[in-house]
């Protein structure tokens, strides 16, 4: 599975501290929160840094497909909403990097791992946004899937992560409504607008279902994460919940979900869905999606082109501090 974004997590704790472990186990058993100063197993810390930094990277890379349409948004109202949304994603990235930093990994190190291609981010952002309706489909499907994934994380055992997720989920649900509203407006519009909306749903539906990760029997990190109360529901359970939520919403929109096998199963009370193309998922995960190279190059260019600005700010801050010291 994913390589840790940070090769060396500073693990100051001794991994066989019996008192610390007993306390940790007690907190987990009581479903309480682990805080930064608590003892924690090195593997728990490493797992969290992996998950939180991947999540942060996903927010940052996820800005690109939507930023692609800011300049062309078809009304000033839509432009303002889209700008605010992409700005929120930068904010989410910041909260998450801060949460990961409480585990002892500096933001620069995580950023460097991302631009070096050593860190993972959600594969969904390796798909292109080919039309305006993609802004609707991303909001409705991608943010919708993200919410299903993230709401349970508001109860994750690591305090700073859980608290960051509370803030993020509030904003995500606003984004999802906006996405739905974009599609709704298009579906009430001209034939060209309706076709645009259906085309976007056709392209984003299956990738959004794959956002929950591989089927349970193939998910490497899931079991341990569930034991540690980081993850609360399995990939397949969350995916099912998402499909059940989408079907009536698709009907309200008047769009067709592109799955000929989709049918209501009386026995389970859930919507059964067709086989997903996990080969496609592995291809994108392996770097061979439509935009992997482009997304990383964009992030690397921003990071490298901005280096002189960050250096100037750091040099100025040092000079100010020196001057203040001399004056004192």
């Amino acid at each position, binding site marked *: 599975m994913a390589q840790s974004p940070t090769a060396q997590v500073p693990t100051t704790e001794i991994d066989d501290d019996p008192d610390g472990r007993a306390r940790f186990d007690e907190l987990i058993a009581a479903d309480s929160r682990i805080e930064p100063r608590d003892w924690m197993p090195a593997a728990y810390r490493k797992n969290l840094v992996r998950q939180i930094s991947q999540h942060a990277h996903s927010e*940052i890379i996820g*800005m*690109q497909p939507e*930023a692609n349409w*800011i*300049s*062309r*948004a*078809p*009304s*000033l*109202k*839509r*432009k*303002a*909403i889209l*700008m*605010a949304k*992409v*700005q*929120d994603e*930068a*904010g989410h*990235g*910041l909260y998450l*990097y801060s949460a990961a930093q409480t585990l002892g990994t500096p933001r620069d190190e995580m950023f460097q791992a991302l631009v070096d291609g050593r860190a993972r981010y959600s594969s969904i952002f390796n798909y292109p946004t080919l039309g*305006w309706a993609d802004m609707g489909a991303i909001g409705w499907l991608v943010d919708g899937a993200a919410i299903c994934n993230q709401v349970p994380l508001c109860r994750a055992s690591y305090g700073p992560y859980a608290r960051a997720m509370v803030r993020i989920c*509030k*904003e995500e649900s*606003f984004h999802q409504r906006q996405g739905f509203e*974009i599609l709704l*407006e*298009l579906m009430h*519009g*001209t034939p*060209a*607008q309706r076709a645009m909306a259906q085309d976007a749903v056709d392209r984003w539906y299956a990738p959004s279902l794959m956002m929950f990760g591989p089927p349970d029997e193939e998910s490497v990190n899931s079991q341990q994460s569930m034991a540690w109360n980081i993850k609360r529901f399995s990939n397949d359970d969350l995916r099912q919940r998402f499909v059940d939520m989408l079907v009536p919403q698709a009907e309200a929109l008047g769009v067709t979900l592109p799955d000929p096998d989709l049918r209501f199963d009386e026995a389970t009370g859930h919507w059964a869905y067709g086989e997903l193309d996990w080969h496609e998922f592995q291809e994108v995960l392996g770097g061979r999606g439509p935009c992997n190279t482009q997304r990383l190059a*964009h992030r690397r*260019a*921003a990071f490298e*082109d*901005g*280096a*002189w*600005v*960050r*250096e*100037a*700010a*750091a*040099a*100025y801050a040092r*000079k100010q501090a020196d001057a203040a010291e001399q004056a004192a």
Partner: protein
Amino acid sequence: MTRADPHGEVIVDRLSLADEIVGGGEEAATADAAEYALWLGDDALVLAQCLGWWISRGPELEEDMALANIALDLLGHARSLLSHAGTADGRTEDDLAYWRDEREFRCAQLAELPNGDYAHTLVRQLAFAVFQVELYDRLQESSDATLAAIAAKAAKEVAYHREHSTEWFRRLALGTDDSRRRLLTALEHVWPYVGDLFRDEPLLDRLEGVAVRPSTLRAPFDQAMGALAAETGIELPDPDLARGGGRHGIHTEHLGLLLAELQVLARAHPGATW
């Protein structure tokens, strides 16, 4: 109107000036006041369009957020100003933003200069922010109640923009040799267009008490910029070198491309709503 929590500044519904602006929005603008509102609205719209490019490309995440914030404020000002301008002849903010051609735009050429590197964007933004702080401070006394109300709201926001740009000007001027060199290059490219902001046009003679005469903003602008330049040891280039003409619809080569991108989708679907 619906305000979208948690985006206090974002107007989600079609802009209703009467709701948005306390104390204004009832009376239609006169043709001359509308023309003046286009000057200011187009400055804000074109700047917002330029700044929007930085979202996902900033030198650090905090700057992605700050530039997005400024762009959102300016877009809000543009929407108010264009909506007000549109009351003169029954056009909406979107009619004006998407369906006017290049020569009908009234932004100053400074607004449409390319983003360049961060120093270019910063210098352009600083000049506008210092100008707009003085402008909106005075425009609050306009006898056009809507313009006065828009100015009252904008004044608080542009004060933050000025603070942001001023602080970055100091960092670039006094940070590293490289940042200072880049700042000087940016000033050389951008500053010649600054003087155009302060030119009085015949329109102003018909807007006594309604508009702020640009020439009267020159002294406070020069004073603020002079102080910052002295503090940082930077020599500002000649601000009156470029020929200008944006208020008459004469633009640089950059505006056509900028508008092509801004308008392409809306124009592909005439009559559609979004």
